[in-house]
């Protein structure tokens, strides 16, 4: 092999151990003949090591989300047999719900549709699962979709005399939904809140603080709660066994 024909891509592949043995042999031959190849390989290797070294100890925030997540997950896996039967019941509930409600088939979030259909059946009557709906986008179509789906859930809840809660948690652009001066659905939300006592509205205080830093006054809709952080609130709810849906 002409050592001048050795491309940078080939040398990179050599350094990353991506070549087969024939190609490696050719590079080793070239190494003996051309000192510049050796220099290039040495340079690539040292850069690789330097990068590893630079990120060997990235800063760590004081949190242990794994434990928080698993405190929610572990009880589930411990009860795998009962979960399996629950899933079977859910499937039946889903099937019957699907047959009964053709109007919901279009423009519905599949996860929410599933929860809604579960809500229609009586699977959770003894131990209803609460639902957290996470909104992080200011796109009016998404906001409308979030409200439509939430209303479907709450209506099914009311009809079947069930008592699960639905909590809308908004952060980032989604906070617009709960801002009285900006929200395109302020009136609708107020009516929903009056009609469904099981509906809770929560805004992320970190997003509010960021808006205020930019000189934007944030006026929230009446009865809107504030959580210290959307992520923490979601974690807390997952820990408590709530279902989570992101719009």
């Amino acid at each position, binding site marked *: 092999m002409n050592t001048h024909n050795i491309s940078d891509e080939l040398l990179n592949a050599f350094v990353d151990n*991506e070549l087969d043995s024939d190609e490696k042999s050719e590079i080793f031959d070239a190494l003996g003949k051309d000192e510049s190849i050796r220099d290039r390989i040495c340079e690539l290797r040292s850069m690789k090591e330097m990068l590893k070294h*630079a990120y060997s100890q990235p800063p760590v925030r004081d949190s242990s989300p794994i434990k928080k997540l*698993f405190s929610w997950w572990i009880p589930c896996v411990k009860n*795998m047999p009962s979960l399996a039967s629950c899933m079977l019941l859910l499937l039946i509930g889903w099937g019957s719900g699907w047959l009964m409600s053709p109007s919901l088939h279009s423009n519905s979030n599949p996860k929410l549709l599933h929860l809604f259909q579960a809500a229609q059946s009586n699977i959770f009557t003894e131990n209803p699962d609460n639902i957290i709906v996470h909104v992080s986008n200011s796109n009016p179509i998404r906001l409308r979709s979030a409200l439509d789906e939430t209303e479907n859930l709450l209506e099914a809840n009311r009809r079947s005399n069930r008592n699960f809660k639905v909590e809308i948690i908004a952060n980032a652009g989604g906070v617009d939904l709960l801002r009285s001066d900006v929200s395109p659905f302020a009136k609708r939300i107020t009516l929903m809140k009056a009609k469904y006592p099981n509906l809770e509205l929560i805004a992320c205080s970190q997003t509010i603080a960021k808006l205020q830093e930019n000189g934007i006054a944030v006026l929230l809709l009446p009865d809107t709660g504030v959580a210290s952080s959307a992520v923490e609130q979601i974690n807390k709810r997952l820990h408590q066994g709530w279902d989570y849906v992101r719009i």
Partner: protein
Amino acid sequence: MKILSIFSDSSTCQKQLEQVRPKLFRLVFSWCHNAALAEDLVQETLIKALKNANQLRDPRSMNGWLFSILANCWRDHFRLRSPTKDADEIEDYHCVNQTTPEDEHAQSQLISHVWKAVEKLPMGQRQVLTLVDLEDFSYIEVAAILSIPIGTVMSRLCRARQALKHLLKELAPQQSAHVAQIRRIM
């Protein structure tokens, strides 16, 4: 049943995720250099992984699967905020905070220089470079994680290392020039 078996042993599963979590954090931190954002994205990745555990067909590919979710979370994070931009073209001002943790590590000049140089790389190159060099993924695994052809992985990696070499030279302290300037003033 394979899927269930992955998570049925909770301690094994927890151990596996405990092991991979710092790696996820390190990788996404190398993309954004913002510890808070990195932590949020790792958390979102783990939530999605738990929710979509049934999508994991082969337990041996769990590592690559988690990194794919992380790459998707990263892409979604910026697409939701700026729908017209491609994730590869995200400018650094979106990612770099004025009070980045690099300030806290300024005592180590080498680390600081490498971080600054990596920050200046285009996002596509940065992702490929860090997946290969920090996490030791093969080119084919990187292609699967980022959903790009393997040829693109190779060309991006090559361009990233060339750029990094020049950036590290540019960012290196030039003491001799500084001394000469002082002499002229005196």
